[in-house]
């Protein structure tokens, strides 16, 4: 979801520096990043990644956060493969904040996003497993006084022909103290027993997530802990002018009330008195610098801009000249709303600060910047700050905060009440939903021309807010003053079109925005795939055959498309009466996903009956998790294009809960069939790429049904307030 320019990542790694992200930070003399930058080599030390207990269980410390997308299981699979462990002995937990040891190799800092978990760890974690295997064998060879080369490891059992036999636990202490081999030999893929195999690897976290034992931040309940809720400005950018806490402090269970930079914090013994205390606060807000525009005003501004040329992103051929030649000329506008992530567990975090040290525990997606933010607010050296990462109830981008706003607020509420008082900061659902950091509001104006059955011209004028502007990503990721996450997917379409243009207006709005599962592709995937379908329709082409003709330089797009055509039996399938099918294919984060949707119309809007999905994510490490992510991505995409929208009333976000921010429910979930395209390409991510094709496939099916492609989302008007 974040730094998904892989060319940049590769170049960065080749240079041997820890990355441009770091560069930006080092320039600000931030010690933590400087330390990571000074240690650019890839860490494969088993004693930093593995805990091998006397009972021979192997716990893999996962660099990334587990909030559903499966890195616990994924990292353990990579390690276990090379370690020749028995899957039953594998466990996983989160690595603590330490960018020297646990940085994301695609980012140069510790953090999860951009569907990079497997992609950036595929070699590294296998090396960890291979190194550990080699060290365990060496320890056993030493103990048994036999040559290491004669020892075998199979399913967690170390053996020698002399009859010696042992398990990892017996040799772990000795092995982990040995020097780490510099370049441990990895298996040839033909030898894999776990990677890519069906049915042998089960998720490590399923049981605890079924019996209530899985431990989340909200579940922290330490002695003397205070639960804190913060009253924040109803309008973005508003500040506290004055407040009266008399009534709040009179609420039984409320311990204290303090002002912080973001609002007024209420400290209580438990959540309910904190919430009641907050409701009793009397606050006057200073809205002089607040965003006061409503959705209608934004639409007007964005629409006006979309009719003028923006800053050029990319041009090929002669677009305007080609358009002037006429033929079938099509111009359409697509409007995308602000979207909240609305993860099941609203934001929250715990911090214990004693004046000299700070210990934070929460579902932290970007440990490195958060670590620095906490250290800065509390005035502590970074080595006096510790962050343990906990499971989180979803994120979809919301916890990957380049602004570090939650870490700052957490440290501020701890600081405001003073040392020795552990705090659990809790956002209510309404706080979370009205708290901003949305998928940006944006408009695409598409123009194209078809002549003689061929798409001759294509342009896309984008009007959007920037996600990265003002953050530490800006200096490394911006290109010519523009945020590439606003146009990714629109600037380089996969189709052969001779005359092409993409331009953009980058607009400032006082609403905080953030990456939202699949980032720019949430809207660029929609417009590119809906528009190519519309142009192909004008050209009289079949949606799949027509696309394939234009994908001459994009074999993996074509491969995914062919795979889904076969899965859905595109040519011969008889679509039931009253239904129609549509297709879309989108590359995001180096993963290629094609989907076919079958739907009908009801009084409550489209009813999607079935989705066929083909995914090419390179080497498939955990096939069942890949399928699960496709299923989840489809459901997530569908719920939002059908129903979800955050609107603004004079600057204040309207929807505060699921009654007005409608979420997909089980009765709206389609049947799903997934095929994984066989590939030997290096593995890429699956957390996000299931989302983008769903929307346009629905739109294209609606067009086929005669309803037309929805130009303004969500499709079902009035589902949200």
């Amino acid at each position, binding site marked *: 979801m974040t730094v998904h320019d892989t060319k940049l990542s590769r170049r960065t790694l080749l240079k041997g520096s820890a990355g441009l992200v770091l560069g930006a930070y080092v320039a600000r003399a931030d010690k933590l990043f400087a330390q990571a930058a000074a240690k650019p080599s890839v860490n494969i030390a088993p004693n930093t990644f593995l805990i091998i207990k006397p009972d021979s269980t192997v716990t893999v410390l996962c660099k990334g956060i587990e909030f559903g997308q499966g890195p616990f299981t994924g990292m353990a699979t990579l390690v276990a493969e090379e370690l020749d462990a028995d899957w039953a002995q594998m466990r996983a937990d989160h690595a603590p904040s330490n960018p020297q040891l646990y940085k994301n190799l695609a980012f140069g800092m510790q953090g999860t996003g951009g569907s990079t978990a497997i992609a950036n760890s595929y070699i590294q974690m296998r090396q960890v497993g291979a190194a550990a295997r080699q060290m365990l064998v060496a320890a056993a060879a030493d103990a048994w006084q036999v040559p290491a080369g004669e020892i075998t490891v199979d399913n967690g059992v170390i053996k020698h022909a002399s009859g010696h036999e042992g398990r990892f636990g017996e040799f772990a202490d000795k092995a982990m103290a040995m020097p780490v081999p510099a370049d441990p030999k990895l298996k040839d893929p033909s030898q894999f027993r776990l990677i890519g195999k069906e049915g042998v690897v089960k998720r490590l976290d399923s049981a605890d997530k079924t019996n209530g034992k899985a431990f989340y931040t909200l579940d922290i309940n330490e002695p003397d802990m205070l639960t804190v809720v913060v009253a924040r400005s109803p309008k973005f950018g508003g500040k506290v002018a004055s407040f009266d806490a008399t009534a709040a402090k009179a609420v039984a269970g409320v311990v204290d009330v303090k002002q912080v930079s973001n609002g007024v914090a209420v400290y209580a013994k438990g959540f*309910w008195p904190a919430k009641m205390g907050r409701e009793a606060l009397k606050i006057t807000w200073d809205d002089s610098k607040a965003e006061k525009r409503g959705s209608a005003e934004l639409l007007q501004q964005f629409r006006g801009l979309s009719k003028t040329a923006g800053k050029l992103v990319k041009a090929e051929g002669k677009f305007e000249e080609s358009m002037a030649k006429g033929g079938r000329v099509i111009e359409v506008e697509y409007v995308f709303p602000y979207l909240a992530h609305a993860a099941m567990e609203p934001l929250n975090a715990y911090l214990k600060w004693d004046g000299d040290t700070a210990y934070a525990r929460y579902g932290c997606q970007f440990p490195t910047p958060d670590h620095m933010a906490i250290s800065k607010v509390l005035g502590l050296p970074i080595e006096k700050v510790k962050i343990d990462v906990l499971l*989180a109830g979803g994120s979809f981008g919301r916890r990957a905060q380049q602004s570090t706003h939650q870490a700052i607020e957490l440290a501020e509420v701890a600081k405001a009440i003073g040392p020795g008082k552990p705090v659990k900061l809790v956002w209510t659902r309404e706080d979370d939903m009205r708290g901003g950091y949305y998928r940006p509001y944006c408009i695409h104006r598409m123009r194209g021309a078809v002549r003689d059955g061929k798409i001759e011209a294509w342009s896309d004028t984008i009007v959007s807010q920037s996600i990265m502007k003002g953050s530490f990503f800006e200096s490394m990721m911006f290109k010519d003053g523009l945020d590439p996450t606003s146009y990714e997917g629109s600037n380089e379409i996969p189709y052969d079109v001779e005359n092409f243009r993409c331009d953009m207006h980058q607009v400032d709005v006082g609403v905080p925005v953030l990456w939202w599962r699949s980032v720019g592709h949430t809207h660029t995937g929609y417009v590119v795939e809906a528009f190519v379908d519309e142009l192909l329709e004008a050209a009289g082409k079949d949606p799949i055959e027509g696309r394939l003709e234009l994908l001459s330089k994009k074999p993996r797009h074509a491969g995914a498309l062919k795979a889904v055509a076969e899965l859905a039996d595109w040519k011969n399938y008889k679509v039931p009466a009253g239904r129609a099918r549509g297709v879309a294919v989108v590359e995001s984060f180096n993963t290629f996903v094609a989907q076919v949707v079958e739907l009908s119309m009801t009084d409550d809007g489209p009813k999607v009956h079935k989705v066929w999905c083909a995914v090419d994510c390179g080497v498939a490490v955990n096939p069942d998790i890949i399928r699960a992510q496709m299923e989840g991505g489809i459901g997530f995409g569908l719920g939002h294009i059908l129903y979800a929208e955050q609107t603004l009333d004079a600057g204040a976000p309207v929807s505060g809960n699921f009654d007005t921010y409608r979420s997909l429910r089980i009765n709206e979930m389609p049947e799903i069939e997934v095929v994984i395209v066989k590939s030997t390409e290096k593995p890429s991510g699956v957390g996000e790429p299931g989302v983008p094709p769903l929307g346009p496939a629905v739109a294209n099916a609606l067009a086929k049904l005669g309803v037309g492609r929805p130009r303004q989302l969500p499709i079902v008007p009035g589902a949200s307030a």
Partner: protein
Amino acid sequence: MAAFTLKINGQAREVDVDPNTPLLWAIRDGAGLTGTKYGCGVAQCGACTVYVDGQTVRSCSMPVSAIGTSEITTIEGLDSKEAKAVQAAWVALDVPQCGYCQSGQVMSATALLSVNPTPTDNDIDLAMNGNICRCATYVRIRAAIHGAAKSLEG
């Protein structure tokens, strides 16, 4: 504040809270049982589902003062044969992703199978559409309920 004795999972638990405190927070902050989750606070998402005298209830929207001597069952106290079948089916199909809603899903699914051992897809829709899963694990939830039903047939 007032003292309440709640019967949770067969045990008497003293909680000292405001009478208007939702049962959810009495269970979580008062009794220290954290398997029951907060998701919305307005009975929209089902993450807080518990049983009160065997009936599914959104604990976020029922004040603790309304409980009286009723028996409360939370995810920690589930031990019926239906519950075990549901949990086994959940694990067999690796249903959970983030997992945060799954206590509520398991409570609702168990309640369904307890009254309807062979639910149709439509029965599942009706029983489960009060439980939101933002990861959209619905395909597997449905399959796991059918799987659990099948395993109970024995």
